[in-house]
């Protein structure tokens, strides 16, 4: 494993290895609860909390966890954190808790969280694991916000509940419905691909000498 | 066991324009000898022949210049008297360069072959007849140029009960077989008689497309009384002449995938090939000339010519008055399966059935569109493949999957490409895929 610097640990998850947009992990909550910005934020924060907490704990305990039961143990740890988050949210912000419905408990099985434990926390120091978890968590929040913003703005004509286009805006119901989730993510990925390819192409062409056949330049 | 009346319709297939009017009524004539003859050693299916002459040797018309290399191979004979000027690489109709013997034809020679002993075939055993056919370098003239003696020696465990004569000539433009049947019906029957005797078969069926009523009449009229020969007109549809389709139509037998006609007790031979067998025993001359249709709107005087094998394309075109201004594509064989030529120096081979000169207007449009999954190609494929799927697989070079989808049963007839409204070069893709697979498997 190539060694990374702490900054890399933190920044990697935010964009270059964004869990949702690049690694395609934790998709279920990313699509299911992002029909408004508020829901996205709540879900993102809850996940962030669970991810950081369990990363720290797993990293602390890694020495004592036998390999064969590591997954079960990680899940135990994660589930405890999620239950705590679930109950706390329900007590503090019941409205949002209701909106997120079954998806708070489902944080337990967010592949992203387990993935970070397996791939990082189980092998690294506490500090590094926390950085990595924080980075990944922020990346998750960013992705959720992007989805939530697009869906809420088009689907309701509002942002965080504030009307953007006046009362006679025709909401695009589909954006709030399940197809809207898939389509929005597809569209975002399309855009990201486009940007990435654009950059890569320029990089490759830069290395090629003059006189290259025209079609490449296009 | 032939169908009692009327042929079964060929399933699949297409109806290209026939375009035979240019030459179907033109009598066969002999072309004058050219100045130079070029005889590639690779003219037939199987191994190339081995040259047995040297630069500077003088050969006479009919002399053997190359020996068969093994059983599935065929000897080659000088088609004109003259001096061997070179044995070197020469453009070949398949688009490559191949070893060829070049003969400077003697301008003032009568080109009469030296007198030969012509044994009476009636006195020969089947083995001796087959040997004579082999020595004469006879190969199938229907296109594939498969050595005839191989076909005539089926293994014991595969008894043959019927000979099918293929007079369909389903390719557009070509009239070689048509004219042969009209002008030399007796020769066809004689060749057939010799073949039947070789294999010991008593029954033969001649399949002729209905668009050649005069050929049907001529062949029917001359059927010898002592032979069980049926003449069966068949529907006009391409590729009715492909042997598997013809056997299915005439006999209701389907050659299993990957098998040969002999596996269903049949031998298929082209009518011109049969006529050549007869000629061998009539004149004693080996296969050194053949009938070629030179046609298409791009040639000034379309004709059916008797041409020495090895005549260069340039000379042949000149013998037909040359090409027109707008001639653009020259094809050896029919327009559906033939090969386009880039070089006018290529020689005609034993298997060259015709030369079609297309003008710019005749050439198929070349702009392709994306496949719209219309399924026309599936309807057209006479062996019921899925060219649509195969084509898509070919484009991403997934050859193994193509094989799993029966690519090897494709006979490259081109029906799918013809039918495709998007003009996708399906059969070209399949030819490439088959090649790639063959080299991969050889490796």
């Amino acid at each position, binding site marked *: *494993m*190539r060694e990374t610097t702490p900054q890399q640990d933190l920044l990697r998850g935010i964009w270059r290895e964004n869990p949702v947009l690049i690694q395609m992990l934790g998709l279920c909550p990313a699509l299911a609860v992002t029909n408004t910005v508020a829901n996205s934020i709540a879900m993102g924060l809850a996940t962030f909390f669970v991810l950081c907490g369990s990363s720290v704990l797993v990293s602390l305990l890694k020495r004592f966890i036998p390999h064969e039961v590591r997954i079960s143990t990680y899940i135990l740890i994660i589930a405890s954190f999620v239950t705590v988050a679930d109950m706390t949210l329900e007590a503090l912000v019941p409205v949002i808790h209701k909106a997120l419905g079954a998806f708070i408990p489902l944080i337990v099985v967010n592949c992203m969280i387990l993935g970070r434990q397996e791939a990082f926390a189980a092998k690294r120091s506490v500090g590094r694991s926390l950085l990595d978890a924080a980075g990944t968590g922020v990346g998750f929040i960013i992705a959720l916000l992007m989805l939530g913003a697009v869906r809420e703005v088009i689907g309701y004509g509002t942002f965080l509940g504030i009307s953007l286009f006046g009362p006679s805006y025709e909401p695009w119901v589909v954006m709030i419905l399940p197809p809207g989730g898939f389509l929005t993510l597809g569209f975002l990925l399309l855009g990201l691909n486009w940007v990435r390819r654009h950059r890569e192409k320029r990089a*490759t062409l830069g290395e090629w000498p003059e*006189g290259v056949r025209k079609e*490449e330049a296009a | 066991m032939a169908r009692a009346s009327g042929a079964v319709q060929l399933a699949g297939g297409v109806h290209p324009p026939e375009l035979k009017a240019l030459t179907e009524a033109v009598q066969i004539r002999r072309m004058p000898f050219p100045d130079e003859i070029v005889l590639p050693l690779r003219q037939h299916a199987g191994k190339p022949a081995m040259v047995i002459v040297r630069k500077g040797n003088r050969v006479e018309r009919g002399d053997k210049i190359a020996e068969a290399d093994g059983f599935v191979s065929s000897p080659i004979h000088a088609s004109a008297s003259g001096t061997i000027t070179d044995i070197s690489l020469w453009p070949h109709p398949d*688009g490559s360069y191949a070893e060829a013997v070049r003969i400077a034809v003697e301008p003032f020679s009568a080109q009469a072959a030296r007198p030969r002993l012509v044994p009476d075939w009636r006195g020969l055993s089947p083995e001796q007849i087959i040997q004579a056919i082999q020595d004469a370098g006879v190969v199938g003239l229907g296109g594939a140029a498969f050595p005839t003696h191989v076909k005539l020696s089926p293994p014991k465990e595969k008894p043959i009960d019927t000979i099918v004569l293929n007079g369909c000539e389903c390719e557009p433009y070509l009239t070689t077989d048509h004219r042969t049947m009209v002008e030399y019906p007796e020769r066809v029957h004689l060749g057939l008689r010799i073949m039947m005797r070789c294999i010991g078969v008593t029954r033969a069926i001649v399949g002729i497309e209905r668009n050649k009523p005069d050929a049907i009449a001529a062949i029917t009229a001359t059927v010898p009384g002592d032979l069980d020969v049926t003449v069966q007109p068949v529907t006009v549809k391409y590729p009715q002449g492909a042997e598997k389709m013809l056997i299915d139509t005439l006999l209701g037998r389907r050659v299993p995938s990957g098998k040969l006609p002999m596996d269903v007790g049949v031998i298929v031979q082209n009518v011109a090939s049969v006529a050549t067998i007869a000629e061998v025993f009539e004149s004693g001359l080996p296969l050194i000339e053949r009938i070629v249709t030179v046609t298409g709107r791009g040639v000034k005087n379309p004709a059916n010519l008797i041409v020495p094998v090895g005549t260069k394309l340039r000379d042949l075109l000149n013998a037909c008055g040359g090409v027109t201004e707008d001639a653009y594509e020259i094809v050896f064989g029919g327009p559906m399966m033939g090969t386009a*030529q*880039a070089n006018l120096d290529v020689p005609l081979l034993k298997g060259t059935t015709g030369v079609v000169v297309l003008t710019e207007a005749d050439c198929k449009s070349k702009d392709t569109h994306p496949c719209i999954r219309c399924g026309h190609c599936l309807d057209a494929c006479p062996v019921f493949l899925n060219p649509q799927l195969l084509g898509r697989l070919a484009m991403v070079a997934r050859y193994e999957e193509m094989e799993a989808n029966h690519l090897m049963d494709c006979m490259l007839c081109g029906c799918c490409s013809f039918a495709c409204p998007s003009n996708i*070069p399906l059969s070209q*893709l399949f030819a490439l895929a088959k090649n790639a697979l063959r080299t991969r498997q050889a490796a």
Partner: protein
Amino acid sequence: MSFAAVITSALILGGIGLTFGTLIALANRRLFVWEDPRIDGVSELLPGTNCGACGFAGCRAFAEGLIARRAQPAECTVMGSDDVADVADYMEVEAGEVTRRVARLLCAGGCDVAVQQADYLGLQTCAAAAAVASGGKGCTWGCTGLADCRDVCDLDAIYMNEYDLPVVIPDRCTACGDCVEACPVDLFVLMPLDHKLLVQCKSLLEGDEAEALCSVACNACERCVLDAAPGVIEMVNGLAVVDYSKNDLAAPEAIARCPTGAIVWCEGAQFQSKPGLVRSAVS
């Protein structure tokens, strides 16, 4: 807070943990499949391009090969030497040594020098064109210029120059051999970079016949055979052939009198200058 609740929960979870711990321990004993963890370790160090240049089916297979001592780290042509050292270090083995090879094109017959006899229309791939009278190109041994090799090169190491010839960028080429396989006329060979004497022609024609089709063809005049150290170049079937086992003896002088420029002394990429220029520079 009730004491009972604490007890129940502890009992329940403890009980569940115990039950499944037992089950898994049992299953573990009966069903364990062991896999060397170093395979994962090595895989992570490999570049992950799965190019196959090492001769294995992808990076993980190579990792397995490394662990099984069937391969040496340096056989991965994609890694830089630092990376190779990392892997070797991890495995505590020698890195091994592999000379760097690149793909070389044995044809210089671009559309400026080679004759096009006929137009080709149809599938725009080399494989297709080569099967149809060489795509109308006079020389059937030559490059059809439809870039199958470029398209197959995953590392973007090939570009087509203005004469429709593929040019390999040595720094990018990992000698994976994909282009060798893709070229229907077999024009590519993988060669060590220090094989500098190249005959960039495969035409078997000789003399005027050869030159009529392509002005940079090898016309079998044998001058290079004479100019090079004995045995370095031989004439086989109308084509000059370099015997690379004598590569140490090869020198730029061999190309000085070549009338067509078919033979070149190549440092770095091919086709960087017109043939004539190279020759005058040497003589």
